[in-house]
């Protein structure tokens, strides 16, 4: 069992957990992910690591309540426990001294961008960050990102914070005036795709893919993605790939594999009152 030592609500439906997992915290690197399972009936879901603290022994995860499992997760309290927490999985981010790097985070994607941007800064890069959300209320980790960035840009759909528009619009402006050596983008698929379309082909634009997974160790192949016209497993070959080479249509299509079942889980899983949510409510 893995204790939730801190729970914070960062924005409506966006929550942060610090989970006590000393061994994982000791090994975790920017770009890697964990898989968790809430309880016996739960699914295994992957979440990219938002931060790790080897001394405190904690892993920070940030998630948005978008379905049954993340809803249940959000209902857990500080001091509560997760049944399973496994990691660090996947390959770590490539961190080198590239020169000037633009780090783009959209929505909850700001969280996993944070440790990568920090590592890039520590490696001597000039880090320009762009973070965005639908509105200022949903914008997370503005302060954290400003600490580790040489310059921070903000974009919101409604203009309630920073520039009105998309993070990719801001990126286009930066690219027109600054020489950029590398781009990192994490967020919703359309955002990452837009960033890659904005960035010229000669600038590597790494994206972190989060397809459906089960085991997360290369065993099942559920997380198949196509990169450079080759099938890769995001869990062991990724999760980061050069976004210029990602087959975005396939990624979006495969994300819809269980769209009907996700709805059923949300609406019908409470049939007999024997389900995990009922038992939790009874406790």
């Amino acid at each position, binding site marked *: 069992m893995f204790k939730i030592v801190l729970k914070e609500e960062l924005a409506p439906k966006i929550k942060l957990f610090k989970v006590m997992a000393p*061994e*994982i915290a000791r*090994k975790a690197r920017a770009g890697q992910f964990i898989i968790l*399972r809430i309880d016996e*009936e*739960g*699914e*295994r879901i992957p979440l990219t690591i938002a931060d790790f603290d080897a001394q405190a022994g904690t892993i920070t995860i940030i998630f948005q309540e978008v379905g*049954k*499992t993340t809803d249940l997760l959000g209902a857990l309290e500080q001091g509560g426990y997760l*049944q*399973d*927490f*496994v*990691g*660090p*999985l996947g390959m770590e981010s490539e961190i080198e001294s590239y020169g000037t790097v633009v780090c783009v985070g959209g929505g909850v994607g700001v969280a996993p961008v944070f440790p990568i941007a920090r590592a890039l800064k520590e490696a001597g890069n000039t880090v320009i960050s762009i973070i965005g959300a639908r509105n200022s209320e949903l914008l997370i980790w503005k302060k954290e990102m400003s600490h580790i960035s040489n310059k921070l840009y903000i974009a919101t759909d409604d203009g309630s914070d920073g520039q009105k528009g998309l993070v990719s619009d801001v990126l286009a402006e930066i690219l027109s005036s600054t020489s950029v050596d590398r781009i990192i983008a994490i967020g919703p698929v359309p955002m990452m795709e837009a960033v890659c379309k904005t960035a010229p082909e000669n600038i590597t634009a790494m994206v972190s893919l989060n397809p459906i997974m*089960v*085991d997360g*160790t*290369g*065993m*099942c*192949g*559920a997380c*198949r993605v*196509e990169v450079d016209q080759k*099938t890769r497993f995001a869990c*062991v070959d990724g999760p980061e790939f050069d976004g210029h080479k990602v087959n975005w249509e*396939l990624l979006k*299509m*495969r994300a*819809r*594999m*269980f769209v*009907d*079942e*996700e709805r*059923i*889980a949300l609406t*019908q*899983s409470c*049939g007999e009152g*024997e*389900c*995990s949510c009922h038992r939790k409510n009874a406790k």
Partner: protein
Amino acid sequence: MSQEKRKIIPQKHPMPYQDPAARCSNFEEVALGYSEETAVLEASRCIQCKNSPCIDGCPVGIDISAFIKMISERDYAGAISKIKEKNYLPAICGRVCPQESQCEAKCTIGKKNEPVAIGRLERFVADWEIARSMESAPKITPNGKQVAVVGAGPSGLTTAACLALKGYGVTVFEALHVAGGVLVYGIPEFRLPKKIVAREIENISRLGVEIRVNAVVGKLNRVDELLEQGYDAVYIGTGAGLPYFMNIAGENLNGVYSANEFLTRNNLMKAYKFPEYLTPIRVGNRVAVIGGGNVAMDSARTALRLGAESHIIYRRTLKEMPARHEEIEHAIEEGVQIQYLASPIEIKGNEEGRVSSILCQRYELGEPDASGRRSPIPVPGEMFEIEVDTVVMAIGQGPNPLVPQTTPDLKTNKWGNIIADAETAATSMKGVYAGGDVVTGAATVILAMGAGKTASEAIDAYLQGK
């Protein structure tokens, strides 16, 4: 009972099975097991021949004639102890070992009649013990040495049990959230109930073996770090956990699963109980399973139980099928339809990106290939298409790459299998041993266990000589 004059009963006592009409829609165990009376009668079919050729047929060398004699004398506690001298997972082996090509293939009675039902008797006596919740942990004197085992599948668990019995402190590192490996993620409930697996693993824990789940060696700890941390030796039994695909068009459409994914969702994550269990599985009306091994049978029979019409597509004929005969028979009884001499060349999808049909090439058999089986040759122009909603690829698995990837000193072959000595399971790294599917490629539970046993002896020799 007079041994000399007794007339041999020509056939095995039949195994009682759940009726096919009922079982094709439930996940309860198919084979129900012998009653005590049937087991005693079956055991008495064994003539206790002097040379006991059956023992040579057992990859772990169980004293088969001895345990069968004890069953015939109703000494079940003695029989299970006899088995456990060599095999710590008897309830599992009694169910999933291919006895017909191992111990039973060598049985003297089997020369003129059906062999003694060794597997069924092993299962009977293992279940007898489980039903009595016997805590038969022997006294062990710790020798102060520590061994790390990577992977809690049949190979790793066997190594762990053997070493624990010799006095070693053993820690097993398992990547998934439960121990058992293929026994829990791969083999379905209806063939191997998970409570039986859990019970056998409890017995191993009772020997003092520590099993750490959620521990991905290669990511959390590397093999070299385990040695640095004070483990005197490491055994790698990480299995064949890398699914193969065919590299045909349409393979990434929604509705194409590897058998590993299909079975893992269902067995490990209990998707057949969705939405009580939250992991979904989607089969639609008709499923095509590609392959002819036990994994293909398990997938096809699972699809059937999830409510779909279930087809197997296999390149050769019934005679060449690598699955156990019993499994093929059960699948057919339950209503699985098999298309022989065919293989898919394309999977087609609809506008939503979901599988809609599978296009297959007809084959005929040519000359025997390297495996000794007649090789399939395409018949020009002969193609057919089946409308399906789901395709399950059960064409084999490669070795899981996580440990070799993170252990550069570990030599592997061109397929990524760890190279290990057949006699000692020793790898290219001092103190590191490997066995089971990660060395041999996908094989059987009992061969993986045999490798674990061999390795435990080699590790013992290495550490005692140290």
